[in-house]
């Protein structure tokens, strides 16, 4: 059953990502990217990260991709549809990408660094009663409180910056 879900979600992720990269229309690319993000959310559920799966759907699919679609609506997409979809250096790019892919897969296939089941897994049964969301909340607001506040300031700065750049006259 585990394997079935893993294969299903990875097939969705890979097919959607490939279509996203090769689609001619930017709107289609965005829709395929949403499919990829939902597949990744499914794998998060599979890996016991319920909180992240929820955040992935709400923040990425509900927030970032809607922003993308808004921008695609605001710019004139018809003009780009007439041009070629790949840029001038696509051959050089593909050679670099092939090298990178071979390198990454080779390293993952060769690697034997970490043991599959370290001792820290013994703490899981006691923690499992709490549930993933509560645990992440505990860690986030105790050990990582300062990074959390810094992240909120970063979001504020990004919001102000986006408004300043997108508005013609302030």
């Amino acid at each position: 059953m585990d394997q079935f879900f893993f294969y299903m979600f990875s097939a969705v992720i890979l097919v959607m990502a490939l279509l996203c990269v090769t689609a001619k229309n930017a709107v289609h690319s965005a829709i395929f990217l949403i499919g990829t993000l939902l597949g990744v959310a499914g794998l998060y559920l599979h890996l016991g990260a319920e909180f992240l799966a929820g955040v992935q759907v709400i923040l990425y699919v509900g927030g970032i991709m809607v922003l993308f679609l808004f921008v695609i609506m605001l710019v004139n997409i018809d003009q780009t549809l007439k041009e070629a979809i790949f840029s001038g250096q696509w051959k050089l790019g593909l050679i670099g990408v092939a090298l990178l892919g071979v390198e990454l897969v080779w390293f993952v296939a060769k690697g034997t660094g970490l043991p599959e089941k370290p001792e820290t897994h013994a703490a899981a049964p006691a923690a499992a009663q709490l549930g993933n969301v509560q645990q992440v909340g505990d860690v986030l607001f105790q050990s990582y409180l300062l990074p959390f506040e810094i992240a909120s300031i970063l979001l504020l700065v990004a919001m102000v910056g986006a408004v300043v750049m997108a508005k013609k006259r302030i």
Partner: protein
Amino acid sequence: MIPVSWYLILSAVLFVLGVAGFLIKRNVITVFMSIELMLNAVNLSFVAFGYMLGDYNAHIFVFFVMVVAAAEAAVGLAIIMLMYHNRKSLNVDDIELLKF
């Protein structure tokens, strides 16, 4: 029980697809979407490692990566809008002011 290396290979392939889109696409909005693909690939490997080690700190890392991705998307899309208003083009080959 699925070995963690399968997740890592999936993540590597997803990352490579993102890099491919980043390098070969002509439309700047799709180039930007490819960056999101790469971020998702790295997040997936973070969560897979966290699952393997039974460590919840990986989830915090991924959460912060998502926050930074949201901020980056907002600022980046504002830059794309500005670029479109100034140049009337979304083609990355047209933006060559810094080209040698």
